[in-house]
């Protein structure tokens, strides 16, 4: 009986591509704004402001992007749960995503809000960037592994 229930995500051929576009815009907003804080911690750009100022300025838009990403993502997953569940790249992506979000709201946030500087700040910013680049790579490779 269950098998006869239609999956609303695959009902229309447009739903999946539209969700993907929303997903990309969501991660551009969140990862792009987090990267601005990373570059500030690295003393590269936005140096006229302190790290805590940059972090506070972008925080609402980071959260907005994350929200969009975390709503559209599970909907994309729901289109074909078995495939995603078994996809090695998807599994890696989920681990990296969890690490990236936890890292962002703990160590990264604390470093930015306390205006951390020097090697420690640069290391934290690099880890943050690496985790998010890993999340993007994990997403892309789902279709290639």
């Amino acid at each position, binding site marked *: 009986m269950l098998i006869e229930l239609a999956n609303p995500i695959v009902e229309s051929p447009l739903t999946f591509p539209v969700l993907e576009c929303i997903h*990309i815009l969501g*991660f*551009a907003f969140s990862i792009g*704004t987090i*990267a601005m804080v990373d*570059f500030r911690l690295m003393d590269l750009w936005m140096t006229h*402001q302190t790290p805590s100022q940059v972090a506070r300025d972008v925080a609402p838009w980071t959260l907005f992007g994350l929200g969009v990403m975390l709503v559209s993502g599970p909907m994309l997953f729901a289109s074909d749960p078995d495939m995603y569940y078994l996809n090695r790249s998807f599994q890696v992506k989920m681990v990296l995503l969890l690490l990236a979000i936890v890292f962002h709201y703990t160590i990264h946030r604390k470093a930015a809000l306390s205006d951390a500087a020097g090697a420690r700040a640069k290391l934290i910013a690099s880890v943050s960037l690496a985790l998010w680049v890993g999340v993007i790579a994990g997403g*892309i490779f789902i279709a290639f592994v």
Partner: protein
Amino acid sequence: MSLLSFAQWIQSTDLFTAVRMSWYAYPVILTLHLCGIALLGGMVLMSDLRLLGMAMRERPVSDVIGQLRVPKRIFLTLAVLCGILLAGAKAEEYYYNPFFWTKMSILALIAIHALVFRGSVFKKAAEFDRMKKLPGRVRFAAASSLFLWGCMVCAGRAIGYYDVPIDKLHAFFLRHAWGMG
């Protein structure tokens, strides 16, 4: 030389053939392309929201625009270079892909947008520093920029959804029917 024969020639060069033949080169470059878009996108978002008066309001307009100019150019360059590698590797397919041409048209519109508003908005950012509400043309420049970049992302994603009729592909025959290339 027609555009089609140019596309066939460019994808047959060693560099683009290597990208097409390797299983990982394409997704790795695609990842870098999207990283460039995400990093550029975040900065475009923040500078346009500043012009709209929706973010970073305590920071002077010229300060936000000025500080983001260089990194925006760097990540645009990254996205464009990776884009050229991706498009060149499948140039013949993309020649037939309407979404590819849509994306290129939006890119042209973004270039025109930059030229149109360069003098009246971006170079005059310092004039807006003390204004509570920015002039209409400034807010229009910011809103249209966000709209164009959003369309760019959607058109880019749509490229992957168009299947070129296989009989059109010269490379397909080289690979499968004649066992070459």
